């Protein structure tokens, strides 16, 4: 069963992205050096950036297709996004950050899902706080919870650990592994850190200069 098909071309100044890959359940890691076009690709999946040409299909649902002139707006895609810098809403409490997606999607209250996500990410003690007072690691866990609670069809994670120091990364990685194994939301995970990728990836798409140079299992990393 193939669930995500990405086939995109995009020119960004001197640089151009030309990527073709498919991904399944589990965690697909887009791996490559900075400037390889990883973030551009997941922005295209989320709808924050439009490809010049190509198509993106998720579970048979066309998100984007230049031939069919389909361009689904970002807010209708139900693709969760965990940004590198968290991007929590500063004016809302942690609890309201977490329930934001449910409100906007118009989903009924699901206390079990809320409790499950809060426990999975161990953020119960933060609910009444505001984002300004959180540590980097706490902020990223809340960002993951916020994306998870919108009941996404796919979760995009853009170097979610890049802003954290090494010790903190090891604190968060187990949560992401649990997310992959327990929450069973398919993930596209962007990273340039082989150690991190080795723990998360069920599948690797290796990118260089905007091109896919190899796809396969974690053994592609050569570590």
């Amino acid at each position, binding site marked *: 069963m193939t669930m995500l098909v990405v086939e995109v071309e995009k020119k960004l100044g001197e640089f151009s992205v030309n990527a073709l890959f498919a991904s399944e359940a589990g965690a697909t890691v887009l791996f490559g050096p900075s400037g390889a076009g990883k973030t551009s690709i997941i922005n295209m999946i*989320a*709808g*924050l950036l439009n490809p010049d040409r190509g198509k993106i299909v998720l579970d048979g649902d066309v998100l984007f297709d230049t031939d069919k002139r389909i361009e689904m*707006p*970002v*807010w*209708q*895609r*139900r*693709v*969760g*996004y965990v*940004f590198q*810098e968290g*991007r*929590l*809403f*500063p*004016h809302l409490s942690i609890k309201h950050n977490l329930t*934001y*997606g449910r409100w*906007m*999607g118009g989903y009924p209250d699901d206390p079990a899902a809320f409790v499950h996500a809060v426990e999975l990410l161990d953020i119960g003690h933060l609910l009444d706080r*505001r*984002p*300004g*007072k959180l540590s980097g690691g706490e902020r990223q866990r809340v960002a993951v919870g*916020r*994306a998870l609670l*919108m009941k996404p069809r796919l979760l995009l994670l853009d170097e979610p650990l890049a802003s954290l120091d090494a010790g903190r990364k090891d604190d968060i990685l187990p949560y992401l592994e649990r997310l992959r194994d327990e929450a069973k939301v398919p993930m596209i995970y962007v990273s340039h850190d082989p150690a991190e990728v080795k723990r998360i990836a069920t599948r690797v798409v290796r990118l260089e200069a905007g091109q896919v140079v190899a796809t396969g299992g974690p053994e592609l990393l050569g570590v």
Partner: protein
Amino acid sequence: MFDLSPQDWVAVQLSLRIALVATAVSLPFGIAIAYVLARMDFWGKSLLDALVHLPLVLPPVVTGYLLLITLGRRAPVGAWLADHLGIVFSFRWTGAALACGVMAFPLVVRPIRLSIEAIDRRLEDASATLGANGFWVFASVTLPLALPGIIAGAMLGFAKALGEFGATITFVSNIPGETQTISAAIYTLTQVPDGDRAAMQLVIVSIVISVAALMASELLARRASARIHGI
């Protein structure tokens, strides 16, 4: 010692009502124009920008006169509004509120525009990925994050409306009980013998109102600013 005449009290009440209505009505328009100026690029944008700022640079009497010849009872637009919608501005307190709103408008728009320009748009992207359409992105992210600017704009607008004199007196004259605001009442009192004492009392009243408004807006602005910084 404080013995304002009933007519002067009416002037105080009228001033407050006019300034509050002028601020409340110009605020939504101010937010809309500020958003357009901050976010959109279109042909004629600098013209719109200039138009918004016009009341700030024109002599107030000119603005008042322009209002008179467009919205006066016998002016084309004014006559149409009176005949078809029953809205009359000339020589009414509503006309004073309109004149004050027009004069205050550039001061309302500017801080709101600056605060919208300062918003991290990546937060709006995040909101869209979480399922918010354009309206909800604006209502749940843009608007709350622009709140310090909105408070500042409302405060400046209120202060300007409270002190407006030239455009108001030109457009709706100086009718006690209908269009005579504190400023106009003070002006009138300075033109008559023995008016000094009453004028002084109105001066004190206007100082009290202005300081109270300033303190209230400072307090609100501080809370709003702490809020948008996530504290």
